[in-house]
């Protein structure tokens, strides 16, 4: 049964009643399939529910009570009718997949989000205007209908584009989850077996389970029938759905299936946690509000002005549309999406797979990272860290490849110790991995034995060969009562006919069995001083949070144990005392070598790294110290107490920078106390925490206005991953539920990858600022013509369609190019942005773009416009209040400043030339704008004009598009472009240079007088 996928399992169960005693292939696990009759779980999707420990009482009940509760019998099981009935009521034993938003809803959301509403209003106003026109005059031109259609088309196209971008990034994720098949929960014919449902264990035999898919801790846990803990996750008599049984056998009764299993509850509750809006989404919303506010208020203001200036209401509506179109940066949101997805791609290359595009930036604003220990900070494998023999502690290399084992290997004690390590070990490499580096080979065996095997393989060479030469004749495997492991071998010395007995185990147990100790290869009696030395070393290694093993051996005298002697492990017909103690060896799951550096980077970037682990406080603290989460010179309250030899209560809390808090302590804390803890200590380690407490910690951090990143891999982490501003799941060790809940997946499970992600995220925030500043600037240059047109009655300087060609044509590639800009200074040396104070679009940005550069740009473009009109015969003075006559269709002899007369179409053509001129004026100045936006503080020369090649691609694209529009499409009258004389392209150049000089001056003052009035008002 355990070999089946969960779905099939349930089907089979409903068909056959007494399948209870099916043996698995290896016979390691037995289940009695008994169907649950649980009351319908109250599916309260409120997150308060999550913070409570999982709701399960069955572990407290006796077997009799269980039988009663589920109406079954533990010997005969359920009747088939009962089983079918239960199946019908409770559904098959499978998790319901998380609900997907329908594609059409996603698409429609894109259609109405952001500026789209404004543009829809513009389009509808166009059609209404045409309707009124048509009502009055059946022959009225279709211009406004076209404009309305163009606007609608713009909305739809940008909507489709954004949708496509989203879908593309979702697809990356989908393809990724396909790589890790959902069915992988069941591993057939291998050593591991997956538990098919939540099971109350009834009988066990040396059963160990790996609850890592649930808790994230891969440490095997033993299972028995006793009720040992109130918390169902801690108690020993429950086996959970989707966890794996590593060894031993157990029989149990199914108490929960499918969504009602613990894992199912967590998964479904996690999907109930509302996803918070990402910081960048809030920023973009804020930005949209600002721009829309400006657009609508200017639009309405000028509508009123126009009406009170006795313009027709219809004309006023047309003005309103023009103002809206000029104000709305139509291409910007698409640009932002592209920018984010470019960064997402860049991050994917660095092993950060971003599921939700907006999370790209969230990582950059992260101010607290709540990190898991196992697998994220550590290598997720036990590794030999220290050795103690000859009264000395030796340090072993714990780096990822173990290459550098420098401790003294000349002593005779080491020779003996290495033999014990090699022989007293049941772990084996899986065959067929000859070409794989030792550290990457797959080993069959538990974590400690694996560590020892690899350690000895690295130092001694082919361990299997050594074992072959020292044939094993008897073995007592490790068990929790003995706490030691023993094996007896022939020696590889053909002249030595003695048997070698080797033993390893808990150091104190091993020492009890010894009467001598080996020092420098010589056996010496074990006296009090050597025992003392042993204890000191044991305590020291234990204090490092390492798991310590003792090793001893005994050569069995050849006279008493001849070659033919038959060892019997049941009767123990050989001595197990008066052995010779050889040494200690300690193991730890060592930190990844890149992590300390990454933690230092986080610290200098102002990001607080908090470790949240289910591990022991001592181990957690040791790892925290070794990776720098607790820095070398900071102490906890307990450390200070120990150093000063005073009780903990007397220590002033202010002296301590670091704190190690256990789950039990956390349980008793009020939210206020937690807040205090989080603010008072800069270095915090949470140990022995339950997964639910992770959620409490995340919420505590969020109360400090922090942007919280949470790493997690277990199913039970998924609520915290969802709750976090950015949930980071582990790509290798992570469960599917965690990956589903997360915003980002670390493909290499490496904490250091988060730091590169942070860097990218910060850069993208800076660069988005630049992009937005760049895009907003020309809005004023597009808006001013309408305002001047209404107030001073000039012929319209720039048409609505032409504006769209800037917003969606020439400006697109340059604004994307800014995403490739390098950081101005070390962005990892400044504090994370405050999510409420450091806005994407702040007042200086808007003011500087609108009222400084934007205005200069408008003036420059007007110069080009006036030049074109003046050189064709209409001097600026003649243009004022010309609008009414200019636009009248019946006036075909409008006199210019030189007495020449113009027909309506000739004027219209001149007007289009004016549009083109204004367009070119803006475009030329946007080149300057693009260059100045490369930096916000540094001089362009510090940044380097040519370092970002994409900028130049952007500039080239601007010029080429403009050339094509003017010279290529100049004859297409619907586009309102004409062929512009070459010299007009240069009229705005002085203004462009002025913009650049002005901005250099601004930056110079900002650099010279940081914190000054100028800095505050001019730095965006």
């Amino acid at each position, binding site marked *: 049964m355990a070999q089946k996928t969960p779905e099939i399992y349930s089907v089979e169960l409903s068909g056959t009643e007494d399948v209870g005693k099916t043996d698995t292939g290896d016979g390691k696990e037995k289940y009695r399939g008994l169907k649950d009759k649980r009351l319908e779980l109250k599916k309260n999707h409120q997150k308060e529910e999550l913070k409570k420990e999982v709701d399960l009482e069955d572990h407290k009940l006796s077997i009799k009570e269980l039988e009663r509760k589920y109406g079954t019998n533990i010997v005969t099981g359920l009747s088939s009718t009962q089983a079918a009935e239960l199946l019908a009521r409770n559904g098959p034993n499978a998790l319901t997949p998380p609900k997907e938003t329908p594609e059409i809803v996603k698409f429609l959301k894109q259609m109405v989000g952001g500026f789209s509403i404004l543009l829809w209003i513009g389009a509808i106003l166009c059609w209404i205007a045409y309707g009124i026109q048509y009502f009055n005059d059946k022959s009225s031109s279709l211009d406004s209908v076209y404009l309305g259609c163009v606007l609608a088309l713009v909305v739809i196209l940008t909507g489709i584009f954004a949708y496509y971008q989203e879908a593309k990034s979702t697809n990356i994720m989908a393809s990724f989850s396909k790589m890790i098949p959902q069915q992988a929960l069941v591993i057939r014919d291998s050593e591991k077996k997956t538990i098919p449902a939540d099971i109350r264990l009834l009988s066990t035999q040396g059963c160990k389970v790996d609850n890592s898919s649930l808790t994230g801790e891969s440490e095997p846990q033993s299972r028995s029938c006793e009720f040992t803990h109130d918390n169902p996750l801690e108690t020993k008599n429950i086996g959970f759905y989707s966890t794996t049984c590593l060894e031993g056998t157990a029989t149990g009764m199914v108490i929960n299936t499918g969504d009602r299993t613990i894992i199912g509850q967590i998964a479904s509750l996690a999907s109930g946690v509302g996803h918070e809006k990402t910081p960048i989404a809030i920023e973009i919303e804020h930005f949209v509000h600002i721009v829309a506010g400006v657009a609508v208020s200017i639009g309405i203001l000028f509508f009123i002005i126009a009406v009170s200036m006795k313009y027709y209401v219809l004309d006023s509506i047309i003005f309103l549309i023009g103002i809206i179109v000029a104000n709305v940066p139509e291409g910007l949101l698409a640009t932002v999406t592209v920018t984010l997805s470019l960064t997402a791609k860049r991050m994917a290359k660095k092993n950060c797979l971003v599921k939700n595009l907006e999370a790209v930036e969230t990582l950059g604003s992260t101010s607290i990272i709540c990190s898991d220990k196992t697998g994220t900070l550590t290598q997720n494998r036990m590794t030999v860290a220290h050795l103690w023999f000859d009264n000395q502690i030796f340090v072993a290399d714990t780096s990822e490849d173990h290459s550098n084992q420098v401790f003294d290997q000349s002593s005779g004690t080491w020779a003996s110790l290495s033999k014990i390590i090699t022989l007293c070990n049941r772990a084996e490499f899986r065959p067929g991995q000859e070409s794989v580096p030792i550290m990457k080979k797959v080993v069959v065996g538990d974590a400690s034995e694996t560590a020892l095997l690899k350690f000895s393989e690295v130092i001694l060479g082919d361990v299997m060969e050594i074992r072959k030469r020292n044939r094993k004749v008897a073995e007592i495997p490790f068990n929790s009562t003995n706490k030691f492991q023993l094996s007896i071998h022939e020696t590889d010395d053909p002249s030595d006919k003695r048997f070698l007995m080797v033993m390893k185990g808990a150091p104190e147990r091993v020492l009890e069995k010894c009467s001598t100790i080996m020092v420098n290869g010589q056996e010496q009696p074990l006296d009090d001083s050597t025992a003392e030395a042993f204890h000191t070393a044991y305590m020291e290694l234990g204090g490092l949070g390492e798991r310590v093993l003792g090793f001893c051996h005994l050569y069995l005298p050849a006279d008493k144990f001849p070659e033919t002697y038959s060892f019997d492990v049941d009767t123990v017909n050989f001595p197990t005392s008066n052995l010779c103690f050889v040494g200690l060896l300690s193991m730890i799951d060592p930190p990844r070598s890149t992590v300390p550096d990454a933690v230092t980077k986080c610290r200098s970037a102002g990001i607080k790294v908090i470790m949240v682990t289910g591990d022991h406080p001592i181990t957690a603290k040791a790892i925290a110290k070794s990776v720098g989460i607790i820095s070398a010179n900071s102490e906890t309250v307990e450390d200070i107490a120990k150093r000063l030899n005073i009780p903990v209560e007397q220590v002033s809390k202010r002296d301590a920078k670091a704190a190690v808090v256990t789950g039990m302590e956390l349980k008793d804390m009020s939210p206020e106390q937690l807040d205090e803890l989080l603010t008072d200590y800069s270095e915090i380690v949470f140990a022995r925490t339950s997964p639910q407490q992770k959620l409490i910690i995340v919420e505590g951090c969020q109360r400090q206005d922090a942007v919280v990143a949470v790493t997690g891999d277990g199913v039970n982490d998924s609520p915290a991953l969802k709750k976090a501003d950015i949930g980071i799941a582990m790509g290798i060790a992570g469960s599917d539920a965690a990956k589903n809940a997360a915003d980002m997946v670390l493909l290499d499970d490496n904490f250091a990858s988060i730091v590169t992600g942070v860097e990218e995220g910060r850069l993208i925030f800076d660069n988005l600022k630049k992009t937005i500043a760049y895009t907003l600037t020309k809005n004023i240059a597009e808006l001013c013509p309408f305002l001047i047109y209404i107030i001073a009655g000039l012929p319209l300087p720039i048409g609505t369609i032409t504006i769209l060609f800037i917003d969606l044509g020439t400006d697109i590639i340059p604004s994307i190019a800014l995403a490739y800009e390098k950081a101005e200074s070390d962005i990892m040396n400044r504090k994370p942005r405050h999510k409420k104070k450091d806005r994407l679009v702040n007042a200086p940005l808007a003011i500087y773009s609108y009222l400084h550069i934007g205005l200069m740009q408008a003036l420059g473009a007007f110069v080009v416009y006036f030049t074109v009109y003046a050189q*064709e*015969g209409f001097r600026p003075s003649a243009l004022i209040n010309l609008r009414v006559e200019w636009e009248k269709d*019946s006036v*075909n002899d409008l006199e210019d400043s030189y007495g*020449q007369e113009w027909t309506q179409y000739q004027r219209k053509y001149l007007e289009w030339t004016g549009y083109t001129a204004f367009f070119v004026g803006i475009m030329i100045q946007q080149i300057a704008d693009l260059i100045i936006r490369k930096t916000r503080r540094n001089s362009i020369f510090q940044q380097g004009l040519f370092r970002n090649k994409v900028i130049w691609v952007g500039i080239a694209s601007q010029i080429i598009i403009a050339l094509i529009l003017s010279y290529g499409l100049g004859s297409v009258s619907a586009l309102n472009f004409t062929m512009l004389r070459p010299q007009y392209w240069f009229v705005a150049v002085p203004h462009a240079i002025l913009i650049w000089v002005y901005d250099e001056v601004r930056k110079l003052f900002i650099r010279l007088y940081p914190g000054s*009035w*100028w800095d505050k008002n001019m730095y965006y």
Partner: protein
Amino acid sequence: MKCPLTPNSWLNPSRGKRGQPLSSSLILLFYLVFYGFLAALFSFTMWAMLQTLNDEVPKYRDQIPSPGLMVFPKPVTALDYSFRVSDPESYRGYVDDLTKFLKSYDLEEQKNLTACPDGALREQKGPTYTACQFPVVSLKGCSGVEDPEFGYSTGNPCILVKMNRIIGLKPQGKPRINCISKGEKTATLSTYPSNGTIDLKYFPYYGKKLHVRYLQPLVAVQVAFNTTSTGKEVTVECKIDGSPNLRNQDDRDKFLGRVVFKITMHA
């Protein structure tokens, strides 16, 4: 204490005792200076741009290579004249407009103009440029001399057709305004001067400033509705003809070298 004139002190007003108000007045001052500077700069560039212009002749005339045609009385909205012979009020506007327009063609006004020889372009070298007389009598019944009502009272309304002024334009050949009634022959058209000729002596035009009091040649179209026809409605199309460099056909510009108007006369 630092010298109050160092940039540091004016850049750091917050160090001053008054704090905030100083800062906002500084902002005001800044914008005053900044916008003053921008205004000055804009004025300067505009002034510099105007210096490149010639007072007499616009720099480019490429956008008006060929003149448009325009009619008088000035149409109010569309080119649609409608009046009632029996009701003088219904055509008063037209008559006033024509009278006003022909005011500059008054004999008195033309006294100081040159009587130029017919049939040839009149190129002048300056420095003074003279304008040719336009004998308004050549418009016959449409001159307003004999009939101050321009034929509206008698049911033979006059429409004046004028060619747009373009500096330096030298028509080739023998330009004339050719008017035809479109559709049913409900009316006969007479053009004055005969044949609708536009004399070359009025060209080229040297611009408002040099060519003071220049009078552009006019052609009058007088409509006589057929007594037999029931409908007193006619659509007239006038085109420039006889000159290869004056275009009269453009898909987009309906007034380039041509003009179409409609006259509806009620009894």
